[in-house]
């Protein structure tokens, strides 16, 4: 009995170690050079189409989006700027409404803060509930009831 649980412990260690090793290897290795098309896709995914509601330039087929896509492609082909620089350049040219990712300053920061706040509250409430349940504990039965059950069981036999 003892040996199986020890074996189990070792095999669980093996599970955890191999998972961590695979994750570490897989998530840090180089996924190959990024092509220009990859860069265009990555940048246009965080830019909003100026004429549609909430669609990214990557998604949209509207002419406004086509114009931005063409501009991004031109910038990348020129090979001068980094991705962030291109995004900043597009913002400067078309205005901040082409940014698809809300900023993390001012009122806009709320959209990042509120989910975390709600999560903390929810987990906190749950933790509190578990603690209270532990204290109350509905499972304790009285001595009297225990005897009752025992007697009934004996009679059953």
């Amino acid at each position, binding site marked *: 009995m003892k040996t199986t*649980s020890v074996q*189990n412990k070792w*095999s*669980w260690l093996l*599970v955890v170690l*191999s*998972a961590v090793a*695979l*994750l570490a*290897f*897989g*998530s840090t*290795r180089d*996924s190959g050079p990024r*092509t220009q*098309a*990859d860069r265009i*896709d990555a940048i246009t*995914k*965080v830019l*909003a189409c100026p004429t549609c*509601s*909430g*669609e*990214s330039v*990557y*998604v*949209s*087929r509207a002419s406004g989006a*086509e114009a931005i896509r063409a501009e991004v492609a031109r910038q990348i082909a020129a090979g001068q700027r980094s991705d962030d620089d291109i995004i900043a350049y597009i913002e400067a040219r078309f205005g*901040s*409404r*082409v*940014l*698809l*990712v*809300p900023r993390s300053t001012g*009122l*806009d920061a*709320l*959209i990042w803060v*509120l*989910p975390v706040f*709600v*999560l903390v509250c*929810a*987990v906190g409430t*749950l933790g509190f*509930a*578990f603690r*209270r*349940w*532990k204290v*109350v*504990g*509905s*499972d304790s039965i009285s001595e009297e009831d225990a005897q009752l059950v025992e007697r009934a069981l004996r009679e059953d036999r």
Partner: protein
Amino acid sequence: MFFASGINGALGRAFLLVGIIGSLFGAIAAITSARQRDQAVAKLVPRFAILVFAASLGAFAVMERAMITRDFSLEYVQKVGSYSTPAAYNFAAVWSALEGSILMWVLILAGYTLGVTYWLRKKMDDVLSRYALGVMFIVSMFFFLLSFGPANPFAAGPEGVLDGPGPNPLLQNHLLVMFHPPLLYLGYVGMTVPFAFAIAALITGRLGEGWLLATRRWTLFAWGFLTIGIILGSWWSYEVLGWSGVWAWDPVENASFLPWITATAYIHSVLVQERRGMLRVWNLSLLVATFSLTILGTFLTRSGVVNSVHAFSQSAIGPWLLAFFAVIIIVSVGLIGWRGDRLHSPGSIDSPLSREGAFLANNVLFAVFAFVVLLGTVFPLVVEALQSRTIVVGEPFFDQLTIPIGITMLTIMAIAPVLPWRKASQELLSKRLFWPAWSGVLALAGSVWVGATGLAPLLTFGLGGFAAGSALRQVVLATRRQGLRGLVGRANGGMIVHLGVIIISVALAASNSFTHSQELNLEAGKVASFSGHTFELVDVVEEKTDRATAVKALVKIDGGKAYAPAITKYVLQGMNVGTPSVKTGLAYDVYLTLEPPVRQDENKARIKVFIKPLLLWLWIGGGLMALGTVLAAFPGRRRRNPTSPTSEDDFAADLLVML
């Protein structure tokens, strides 16, 4: 004036009027007979249900008739009707704009009311059933009024119109348009049924588990259709919109997804109530949230408010929906407060490491998930209202927040199915999770081997394998014990649904993270290659019909079959619609789009190629979810009658017998 819009207009409005009156009297009959325990009046309720359904069917049929006969005296037909629309799309044109979609809502809601009435036909002497039907009638009346007033599809249009533009070209491009909206509405509107029973249970104070069991299948039915509707919508997006994606987190998509999230949370947490009698307020709140989110979602997407706060005044339907939403919330919260004493449930959850503990954790995540989606949808409104400045909240925001939530959910999904109720010992967990954990490691190793990178996708694949192992373990054990019967019932069918969800998660992670694309300038006779495939332009053809001109590039992939991505120019709307062409495969799809300019040379074409890994598995996973829902709806192994600790409920026992 009544006849100003011709025979169809007059008939349609008459039907709607009958529907309003029928719903009103139905509600009165149901509620007064419930209050006064009057059997004679209660007998009238089914007749009103039939009348209301007949009225809604009549109104819908008149609308279809007007559309099919191209009755351009109606404003709505002028807007979405056209002689050039093919018959099938013309039939679907009825629900291609606001007024018609509200009419479809009316029809489906009246159908549900009739269905519930028929289902309760032998239970009409029960007060709870009458109250529930009363609520259904009230909601029906609201939607009839909406259709009669602010969203009137039978309004007379300007005279002298002989033809219209037809529906949005995007809605006459793929047959899924026929099925996606009705199926989605079956789910969306179906959430009214459990809500009605929840309100009835609150009014009667019979908050034992009876009504929950009674409505379980209705909830599951609605949930299943909502799932299918959402997946068909994604499929439509993939096949029609030409950006190769399935989900863009746009407000309309979010509006359908929000009630799905809360309903999914409910389907899980209700098990805790059935088994342990706990979480009553929470479960009621989830049902209220689900129903009210269908109303709020409709408000957000159909009143024009999401595009801009300033469009608010343009649509008359907005204030109605907002007021109705407020009424639902006030009434529900008031009732829950009023019944607070009876809602208090005895008992406690002993350990977080138990089935019920896992359900609670799952519910916390679902609640946060719903909050994130709702926040992302309405936040631009808040900013615009407070600072009159436009911001856009799009995919990057939703991805950043929902991917961690999704991964945590997968983790719970891996562990929860093996957890026993009450308490789990370490040895038990170690034994039961052993093989599922190894299947997770195997999945991880496999995905690393095929070249997957990135932490989030790898976690998804590994945890997906783990969760699939747990789900399969349950199904295998059950079928070994009971043969094919081990596939049906809530727990086993539920695990099939889980497998579907896991497959979808893996497919989403793969197709979102590892899509790559390339534009190719093709020339006839020259072979271009990308990502191990060759692309050869065969021909560029132009097809003219009276409603549109389509330019198609015939492209041979790997020298085999020719695929034909196209751009169609719709003459009447002056709109260009790209139509992708997809070579489907189990490992990946090759997705081709023809890129503008529209006029293409005879022997030249600019196309874009997307390689979409595992995309087909989204639809397979969706099918599995639907199958699992059906299996879960069948009664499984006979189980003991659930305990109802505070209120004795003969209704439940009776219904169980009836089912």
